[in-house]
């Protein structure tokens, strides 16, 4: 089975620019997560979707970050405007559903803000 897909793999932008990341979860996985992994730290949850509804976005900086999962499949994460401290790897993960135990991660998008 195909894994979690993410694009682009790398992105370099200047501060105050906008950027968008795309994630396609494993087929049939209802729950999708976006994590931010700053260099030297463990991943931190930004937002969690159940189908196309938001379950948890308490750690999402809503003044600059937004995310959507319109049809309950693919998801996009946007940053506008970007700040230097947004430089990180953005990981997408998915899980079959509430009763499942293991999250499967994509390869991540490495963002550098100059």
């Amino acid at each position, binding site marked *: 089975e195909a894994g979690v897909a993410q694009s682009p793999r790398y992105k370099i932008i200047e501060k105050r620019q906008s950027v968008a990341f795309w994630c396609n979860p494993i087929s049939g996985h209802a729950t999708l997560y976006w994590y931010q992994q700053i260099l*030297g730290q*463990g991943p931190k949850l930004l937002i969690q979707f159940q189908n196309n509804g938001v379950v948890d976005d308490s750690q999402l900086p809503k003044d600059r970050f937004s995310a959507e999962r319109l049809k309950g499949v693919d998801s996009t994460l946007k940053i506008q405007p970007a700040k230097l401290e947004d430089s990180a790897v953005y990981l997408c993960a998915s899980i079959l559903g509430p009763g499942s135990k293991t999250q499967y991660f994509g*390869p991540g998008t490495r963002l550098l803000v100059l």
Partner: protein
Amino acid sequence: AQTVTQSQPEMSVQEAETVTLSCTYDTSESDYYLFWYKQPPSRQMILVIRQEAYKQQNATENRFSVNFQKAAKSFSLKISDSQLGDAAMYFCAYRSPQGGFQKLVFGTGTRLLVSP
């Protein structure tokens, strides 16, 4: 809120030897899941091993095993017969079993170096 602590930023091991990575966590819940994930350089995070808190038996997956001490809130990973391909960042993670908020809480990671 739950927290996960990995006190070893970096560990080294020689091929064929055994190494143990440490993890402690803090929670008031009695039922939960614990995970070890491996993140090779520039590659995606993959699950190494999973432990359910209600199970007393320590989980084992081939060369990987855990020492789960629930009372001490300790969850260490033992890698036996280390191989060059084991070199990676290893993250310990905690997850509550209940409800829809199944987010993982990660530690800061331990970088494992494997030398020939």
